[in-house]
C-alpha cells in the first residue's frame, strides 16, 4: 500500500519529520536521519559567529532532504516574521516552521502571536507550518488563514512526556478530517509516536527523543517503525473500548 501525504503540493512518503539539534556530532545526526527514513528536517536560524569560522552544518544534510527552517527562540510575531524572511533569503525556500514561544520555562507557544505572524507570512507567500497548543479552535483559525498544515504539541518541547491530551488530538482529527495534522514536540519514546499516529495524526515531528537517545540511529529506526505501526493501526480502525470483558472464546458449548 502506498500511503503518502501532501503538504502544499509536495508528496511525502515518510510520516516522520525530525530535527537537527542536540546531536553529539554531525555524523551521528546524519546516521539518525538515514535510519529514520525522514524526508524533511528542521533547522534553526542563528547569528553567524564573528570570531571564528564555523563548519557548514547544512553540508551534513542529504541534498534531497526538504529543509524546514524554524523560528525557534522568537517571542513575538515581529521577530518570527523577520527570522522567516531571513531564512527564505538564505535558503531560497518558502517553507517555514512557525514557532512563537510565550514563556522561557515551559516553551509553550504564544497562540495569539503565532496567528498574527502566520497571517502575515501566508500573505507573503510562505508555506507556514505553525507549532501551537493542541486546541481545535486555534487549528481552525490557522487553517482558515491559509496554513497548509497545523502542528499541535503533544507535550512541552524536549519534555519527552508523550501525548498529554489525547482527547484534544482526537477531537481535532474528527472535526478537521481534511486537515494535515502534524504532532510536534513532546514525544519521548516510540509508543508516544504510535499513540499520536493512532489518534489520526498525519505525521510526527520530533528532535530530542532521537538526539538524546544513547543510540540515536537505533532510536530513529524505532521511531520510524512506531510511526508506521500507529499509522497502520489508525487506518485499520481500532476496536471499541468496553468497560467490561467480552469473551474471545465461545461461551456456549463448553463442557460441563
Amino acid at each position, binding site marked *: 500500500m502506498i500511503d503518502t501525504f501532501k503538504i502544499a503540493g509536495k508528496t511525502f512518503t515518510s510520516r516522520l519529520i525530525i530535527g537537527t539539534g542536540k546531536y553529539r556530532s554531525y555524523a551521528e545526526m546524519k546516521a539518525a536521519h538515514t535510519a529514520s527514513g525522514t524526508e524533511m528536517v528542521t533547522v534553526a536560524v542563528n547569528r553567524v559567529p564573528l570570531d571564528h569560522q564555523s563548519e557548514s552544518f547544512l553540508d551534513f544534510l542529504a541534498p534531497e532532504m526538504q529543509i524546514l527552517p524554524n523560528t525557534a527562540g522568537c517571542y513575538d510575531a515581529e521577530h518570527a516574521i523577520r527570522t522567516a524572511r531571513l*531564512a527564505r*533569503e538564505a535558503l531560497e525556500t518558502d517553507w517555514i516552521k512557525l514557532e512563537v514561544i510565550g514563556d522561557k520555562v515551559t516553551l509553550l507557544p504564544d497562540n495569539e502571536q503565532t496567528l498574527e505572524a502566520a497571517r502575515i507570512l501566508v500573505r507573503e507567500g510562505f508555506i507556514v507550518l505553525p507549532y501551537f497548543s493542541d486546541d481545535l479552535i486555534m487549528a481552525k483559525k490557522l487553517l482558515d488563514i491559509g496554513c497548509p498544515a497545523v502542528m499541535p504539541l503533544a507535550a512541552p518541547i524536549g519534555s519527552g512526556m508523550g501525548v498529554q491530551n489525547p482527547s484534544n488530538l482526537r477531537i481535532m482529527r474528527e472535526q478537521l478530517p481534511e486537515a494535515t495534522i502534524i504532532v510536534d514536540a513532546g514525544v519521548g519514546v516510540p509508543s508516544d509516536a504510535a499513540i499520536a499516529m493512532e489518534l489520526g495524526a498525519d505525521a510526527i515531528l520530533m528532535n530530542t527523543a532521537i538526539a538524546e537517545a544513547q543510540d540515536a540511529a537505533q532510536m530513529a529506526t524505532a521511531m520510524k517503525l512506531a510511526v508506521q505501526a500507529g499509522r497502520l493501526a489508525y487506518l485499520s480502525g481500532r476496536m471499541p473500548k468496553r468497560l467490561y470483558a467480552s469473551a474471545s472464546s465461545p461461551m456456549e458449548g463448553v463442557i460441563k
Partner: protein
Amino acid sequence: MKVFINGETKDIPEEINLIKLLAHLSLPQQRIAVELNESVVRRKDWDTTKINAADNIEIIHFVGGG
C-alpha cells in the same frame, strides 16, 4: 566607523558596501542572509548596499534545531 553586527559593536572601514563587509569579516557568502536595520537585503543588492555609521546589521546562518 562604528556599526552593530549581530549585537556587537564593530569598527569597520568607511565607504564599504555589504559584499565588502562580508569579505572584511571573512564570512562565507553562501547560505547566509543579511538584515540591515531590520529589513532583509536581497542577495542581488549586496554589492550596491552601502553601510553607514551606526547601522544595525544581522547576519544569520543555520544551526541544528527542532
